[in-house]
């Protein structure tokens, strides 16, 4: 071995607690994020076996998945959802876990508030019972989603027994053209390598185009890693990262900050370190993308067309036919001719302040099409307040968008925000699976600018030709 290590290997090595012979290595977890949907059975498991939460201070909870985005204080009419929220509140009280509850000024989508509060830091291991935990990799933290049994495991031991994943580098050269965003890069990558293209791997995103992204753009990119099947996504920390973290509530201070900074600077992949796989991309070749099918790899340029299944291999053909049938789309239809009924701007992928600024810039001076219902759901209360300070909410309201409270909302439709059967939605979220946003609903994934433009035009339209006002 050369002794040269990747960012992933450095984090992995630093968190190895034990490597028992013939068993999976035991890895320490620095931060465990918890939400209402995937945790109740884990807390029940602790109670049943008489165990405690080993490190309550390293465990942070919020409610996001099934809460309404109506004004706070509205009674939750879904009694099963209310019971699940109450269970999290009771569990946090019983086990001494810090909870950012519905009425907290810091409540929000778990993957939005972690970074926002400075909880997410370079070099950490972070887990959550949610697949989009990969978001936190934007800081050069090894962050991945786990199931409820593993949630219980981390609560009880602050560790996980994990097989070491493989490494993949995605090297994105060049610069984005105007109108092309981190979301389009993510969709472009998944379109190229497929929804299982990175299974078993931790991706490190590198190259000029990735370095040029803001922290929020990096979060969008890492967020979608799971949609390529990856265990996690990473971006090496740099000055952009440090500037973002500095001064946030849970960030290190004073001498701790200096010590942290010194260790973070040693994290980036050593020159000449090996990856199991390398994928190269050219940012200049990317364009605004729109998904046409029922997984995030079924993607076309906004200037393109719905594919012809006849031109594909046997197994792709069948999957494409099923997808087009569900999506009610004709092969060869131009993407820009697809009309939408609903627009959703939100989710852990695209609900941060820069996303809202980008969408508001498109919406300013325009009005949502008369046949479209469009909603903007900020990722957190903090994002919401920031947007309101800047007057973004007024731009959206004037343009006919709904301005709502923070939560996961229509990304997965566990709360009342869902599509009706047959409705077609331009969505800034991360999954276009059948029924994801509501049974029979048809989801097209796009960037925030593309979603805002679709709301106004009533159909998909190339943001590169937009008349900004």
């Amino acid at each position: 071995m050369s002794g040269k290590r990747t960012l992933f290997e450095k984090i992995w090595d630093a968190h190895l607690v034990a490597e028992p012979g013939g068993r999976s290595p035991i890895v320490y977890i620095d931060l465990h994020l918890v939400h209402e949907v995937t945790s109740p059975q884990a807390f029940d498991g602790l109670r049943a076996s008489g165990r405690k939460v080993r490190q309550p201070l390293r465990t942070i909870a919020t409610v996001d998945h099934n809460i309404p985005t109506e004004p706070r204080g509205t009674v939750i009419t879904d009694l099963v959802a209310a019971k699940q929220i109450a269970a999290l509140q009771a569990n946090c009280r019983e086990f001494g876990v810090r909870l950012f509850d519905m009425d907290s000024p810091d409540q929000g989508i778990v993957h939005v508030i972690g970074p926002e509060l400075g909880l997410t830091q370079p070099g950490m291991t972070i887990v959550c019972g949610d697949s989009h935990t990969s978001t936190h990799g934007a800081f050069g933290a090894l962050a991945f989603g786990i199931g409820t049994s593993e949630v219980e495991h981390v609560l009880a031991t602050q560790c996980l027994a994990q097989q070491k994943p493989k490494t993949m580098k995605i090297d994105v050269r060049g610069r984005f053209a105007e109108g092309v965003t981190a979301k389009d890069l993510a969709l472009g990558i998944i379109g190229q390598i497929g929804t299982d293209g990175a299974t078993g791997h931790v991706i490190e995103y590198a190259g000029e185009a990735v370095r040029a992204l803001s922290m929020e753009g990096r979060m969008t990119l890492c967020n979608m890693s799971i949609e390529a099947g990856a265990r996690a996504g990473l971006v090496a920390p740099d000055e952009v990262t440090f500037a973002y973290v500095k001064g946030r509530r849970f960030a290190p201070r004073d001498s701790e900050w200096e010590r942290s900074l010194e260790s973070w600077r040693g994290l980036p992949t050593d020159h000449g370190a090996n990856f199991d796989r390398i994928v190269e991309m050219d940012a200049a070749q990317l364009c605004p993308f729109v998904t046409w099918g029922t997984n995030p790899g079924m993607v076309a340029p906004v200037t393109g067309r719905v594919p012809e299944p006849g031109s594909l291999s046997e197994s792709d053909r069948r999957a494409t036919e099923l997808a087009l049938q569900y999506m009610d789309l004709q092969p060869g239809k131009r993407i820009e001719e697809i009309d939408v009924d609903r627009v959703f701007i939100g989710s852990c992928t695209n609900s941060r302040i820069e996303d809202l600024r980008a969408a508001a810039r498109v919406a300013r001076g325009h009005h949502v099409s008369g046949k479209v219902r469009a909603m903007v759901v900020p990722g957190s209360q903090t994002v919401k307040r920031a947007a309101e300070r800047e007057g973004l909410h007024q731009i959206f309201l004037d343009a006919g968008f709904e301005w709502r409270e923070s939560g996961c909302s229509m990304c997965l439709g566990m709360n009342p925000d869902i599509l009706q059967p047959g409705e077609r939605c331009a969505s800034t979220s991360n999954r276009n699976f059948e029924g994801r946003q509501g049974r029979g609903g048809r989801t097209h994934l796009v960037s925030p600018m593309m979603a805002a433009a679709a709301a106004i035009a009533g159909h998909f339209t190339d943001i590169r030709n937009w008349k900004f006002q």
Partner: protein
Amino acid sequence: MKPFREHRGLVVPLDRVNVDTDQIIPKQFLKRIERTGFGQFLFYDWRFSADGKKNADFVLDEPRYEHASILVAGKNFGCGSSREHAVWALADFGFRAVISSSFADIFANNSVKNGFLAVRLEEDETEELMRRARELNEYEVTINLERCEVRDDLGFCAKFPMDEFVRHCLIHGLDDIGLTLQHEAEIAAYEARHPVPSALQPVQT
């Protein structure tokens, strides 16, 4: 955890690739706070129409597959959301194993924790099993975890890969929290070297 050594059962073919966990167990059923009772909601949107009537065309509900306990499906099974409810629903419905040419990582991890087998065969092997399950009546296979092998009575026999430790836990039905806690001394030593950062300490009042 229920030990898994060997299982023989009827095979049902689900001829779809990229079966995601939103399909396996739609989100409206994730609000339950129990670990049980999810089987009735398995593949809900495919098995039932919007008004709750059973869709007789869906393969799981064909009478010939009624007692199936092994599902064979296309590649990238269990992709998407981390919801362990997907495994709970499959197991509660009566399945002991899924056979596919690939699985999403989190789904595969969740399976192990529930004594449920995610068996990875080559693509041509899963296609052959799918064909046999479609064309033959009462088509059964035996999955043997000690030999890491799937075989039928007609000469089909294929080996599958499985991490040695995972296999050991499955065969003996071991609780892996207990196993990790055997390393209490190492965990405590790690924690002594890496104390909780002061920023996470409760604010003193």
